[in-house]
């Protein structure tokens, strides 16, 4: 413990006021300032007596009779605290609901799905036309081939007729 010479404590060379004493009452008992103050009080006439007196009056308050409140109040307060907690949790549940909504397909995904669906239906819609074109071309080709074959056959028949007639 640091020992403070008395001549350095000019402020306490006089008798301390009650307010000053009360201020030191708030200091922890291990406080160096409080110890120094008490040491000074011991040296002053009636200083320690006044300090003890002050402590007596303050300590006396601790022993005052304690009255008990009605137990119903405790029950009601606990109910209110519980209700407040429930409100608190309902308020917290809102973002949870939002997160569950997030689990559903988002707008982007919905647009992508719609686009795919339209593309597919368009593809299905145009596919027969495209195939019919292909088929008609093939058909025409076959017709032309047949026509050529027919022409060739007719030419052969005509040659044969000329040969036999001539």
């Amino acid at each position: 413990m640091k020992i403070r010479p008395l001549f350095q404590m000019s402020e306490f060379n006089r008798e301390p006021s009650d307010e000053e004493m009360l201020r030191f009452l708030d200091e922890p008992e291990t406080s160096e300032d409080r110890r120094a103050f008490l040491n000074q009080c011991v040296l002053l006439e009636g200083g320690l007596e006044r300090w003890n007196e002050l402590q007596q009056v303050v300590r006396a308050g601790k022993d005052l009779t304690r009255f008990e409140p009605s137990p119903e109040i405790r029950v009601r307060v606990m109910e209110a605290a519980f209700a407040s907690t429930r409100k608190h949790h309902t308020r917290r549940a809102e973002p949870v609901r939002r997160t569950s909504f997030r689990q559903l397909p988002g707008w982007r995904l919905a647009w992508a799905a719609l686009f795919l669906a339209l593309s597919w239906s368009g593809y299905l819609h145009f596919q027969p036309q495209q195939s019919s074109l292909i088929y008609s071309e093939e058909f025409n080709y076959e017709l032309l081939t047949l026509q050529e074959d027919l022409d060739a056959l007719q030419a052969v028949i005509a040659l044969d007729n000329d040969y036999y007639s001539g």
Partner: protein
Amino acid sequence: MENQEHGSLFIQYRDHGDLSAFQILLDYYNKPLFNYLLRLLRRTEEAEDALQEVWLKVIRQAHTYNDQGRFTSWMYRIAHNHCMDLFRRNHRMPVEEENGEPERADSILDRLESDGPSPRDLLMEQETFDMLEAAVGQLPEAIREVYILRAVHDVPFKEIAEIQNAPLGTVLSRMHQAVQRLRHILADEDASSAGSA
């Protein structure tokens, strides 16, 4: 239990809805808070109504609690403001008389300091309790509140200053008056009981 722990218990209730944390605080403070209100308001019914109201305000105003502050002073500030509202509503303002220094006399407390059984042992006597209770009841409201908060509830003067929204010097002066008056009142009581005997 440290007051810091009370603060974190309250935050646990406020932020996480931990009811058991609130229950600990309620069990710890319900009785002292009731006694504080009873000594200020004087009537049991009024004090019980106020007790419930103060707890409801603690629940409703939970968001105003600063994590750094002491829970005790925050709660007592709510209780103090509630009492002030009641005084205003009933047109009853806390009285703070500024009489001069009461004369010194041999009092019970003086005798308690003398040799013999320790003062605490003597104060355990019911008669002394009753006298002190009555003496505290006779103090003006603002002075009584300072005495109750410091002596009964161990609230430091700095925090009492915050609760009462008054300078520290005023609080110390009120406490000084309380000490002087209690000595005076107890001396009177002592003299009257000696006279009657």
